[in-house]
């Protein structure tokens, strides 16, 4: 077994663009769930909308900043549309509506009616929308090796996307940190505990929930852009499983914490890569073929995470004392 190669692969996941994208998406979900108690079961929908918004407007010839704004605006409008009918109702309604709405986005994206725009189920090729982002890079062309990690500077799975992705993660963490310590965050926390109590203290609960839904969704859309920049926009790769991974990451790291989503994402992708690489090397193909190993990896990750959530329900960074308070 080539351990050094496995280790490099695994360590590479720590700062991979996908890890950053998921961390960002989980930070958005943390604003919804951890801070406000909103059950958004369609975070992948926000990401996919962001991805489409960015890719389609770039393909239409819009500059980078405008395409990013379009992506974020799409998510904001989506959040408003979902929130208007549901945020006045009990929490579970939002869960049902978001899961359905995210599916609708995916199904519309892959429908043949809009092939010119979305490329239907085959999606949009990465090369058709990557240029503006790569052109914005300050680096020269070529590749760069930092220790054992060698990536191109600008193209696709590059240092540039890593820099931008993790920069955004840092920014989002700073934002959440500031908000959690502010009176605004306190109102959200109150809503998470008991909406009616907060209402009786004169706060417009509906408006706060809307702000939270839109803010978390916009962060999700940014995550969607980072997610598709090193690959293609493929609606089927951004469906329900993606939402569930984001939830897993959030609960694993610890909801209502600043760095929980980041840590959760790193652990999630690192352990997945570790399991898959070790098995690919160690298990002969006569017993398990590559794609079976792929699936088996997900199973192991699922079971491990179930155990973690059962035995450490507050997540890795969560506050045990806070969780021990039974909500009477």
């Amino acid at each position, binding site marked *: 077994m080539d351990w050094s190669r496995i280790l490099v692969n695994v360590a590479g996941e720590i700062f991979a663009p996908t890890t950053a994208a998921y961390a960002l998406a989980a930070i958005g979900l943390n604003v919804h769930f951890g801070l406000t108690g909103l059950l958004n079961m369609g975070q992948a929908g926000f990401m996919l909308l962001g991805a489409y918004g960015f890719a389609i407007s770039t393909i239409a010839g819009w500059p980078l900043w405008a395409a990013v704004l379009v992506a974020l605006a799409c998510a904001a409008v989506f959040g408003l549309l979902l929130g208007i009918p549901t945020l006045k109702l009990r929490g579970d309604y939002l869960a049902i509506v978001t899961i359905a709405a995210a599916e609708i986005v995916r199904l519309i994206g892959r429908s043949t009616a809009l092939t010119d725009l979305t490329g239907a189920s085959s999606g949009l090729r990465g090369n058709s929308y990557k240029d503006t982002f790569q052109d914005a890079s300050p680096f020269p062309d070529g590749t760069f090796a930092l220790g054992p990690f060698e990536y191109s500077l600008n193209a696709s799975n590059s240092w540039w996307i890593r820099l931008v992705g993790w920069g955004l993660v840092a920014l989002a963490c700073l934002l959440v940190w500031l*908000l959690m310590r502010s009176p605004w965050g306190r109102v959200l926390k109150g809503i998470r505990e008991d909406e009616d109590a907060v209402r009786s203290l004169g706060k417009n609960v509906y408006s706060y929930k809307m702000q939270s839904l839109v803010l978390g969704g916009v962060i999700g859309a940014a995550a969607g852009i980072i997610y598709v920049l090193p690959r293609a926009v493929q609606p089927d790769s951004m469906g329900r499983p993606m939402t569930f991974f984001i939830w897993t990451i959030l609960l694993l790291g610890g909801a209502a914490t600043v760095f929980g989503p980041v840590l959760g994402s790193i652990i999630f992708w690192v352990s997945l890569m570790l399991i898959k690489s070790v098995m690919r090397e160690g298990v002969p193909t006569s017993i398990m073929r590559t794609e079976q190993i792929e699936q088996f990896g997900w199973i192991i990750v699922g079971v491990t995470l179930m155990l973690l959530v059962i035995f450490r329900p507050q997540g890795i960074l969560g506050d045990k004392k806070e969780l021990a308070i039974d909500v009477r």
Partner: protein
Amino acid sequence: MSADLPRGHVPPHVPHATTATGKDRVTADLSHVAHTPGVHKPDAIVVADGVTRHFGGMTAVDVGHLEVQRGAITALIGPNGAGKTTLFNLLTGFDKPSTGTWSFEGRSLSGVSAARVARSGMVRTFQLTKALSRMTVIENMRLGAAQQPGENLLTALVPPLWKAREKEITEQAEELLVRFKLDAKRDDFAGSLSGGQRKLLEMARALMSNPTMVMLDEPMAGVNPALTQSLLGHIQALREDGTTVLFVEHDMHMVRHISDWVVVMAEGKIVAEGPPEDVMADQAVIDAYLGAHHDTDLGDDALLEDGIQRLEAEEAGEVTDAFADTGSTTTTQEGTR
């Protein structure tokens, strides 16, 4: 005190009675008000008209006319299921009435959201306490404050814009916590408090916004007697500051000791109104109470004994259940005497 005082006579000594400038004023104002349900008050802060609430075929609230005197401590009493909490919910925007209008300080509140009602100065507490469990006591208190610019999303990102106000809020909160004997619990999670402590926290939190009117739904339920005494003092102090208090309470001792005016509800309707001593002596009230739950303490043993005698008489088949007839109270009582 001689034994032949009229029933319901209030003993002259009231624990924690304040210098009572507010009380004197309110008593003077209310002294000319007739003791009939729905009577007009000289200076009403809340005026409700034709407020009804139906749940399916059942009428939970059916209030023809109700006025609450500004600056007074008004008690709302009545047997379980009388509609007191439902009326609170309606007045504070937590529930929508089937019909009716009401105003607070002259402004109509029909259809106004609960949050706006609270912001306009009418703050309520809940019968089933709503402590925010996974927030500390002090954070609960801070949340009660009004005019914190940091509660705006954009301002929140710039701490210098809200730190000064936060400091004021915290000082006010700490003062209140001391008053309510919760200062030792300042940094504990509210979920770790006992039931009685949560009641106290909820009441203290409601006072954070310096409301014009507080509506307390059974504030003393589960609070120990020693603390009840000091809470009575706080409520009276609120009156001295000019705050209007409307509270629901089953403990008749407390009602008698601090309220200036008592409104009695039964089966959704207001069946009696008046100063505590008169209302306690009102046969309709005794009937309403003893008809519903026999062990209620009406605050005067003489009343209770009288009630028990009546109950015995009822059991002997001499009278029908007076409570079932509260709609036609006066006549029924005449018949049962």
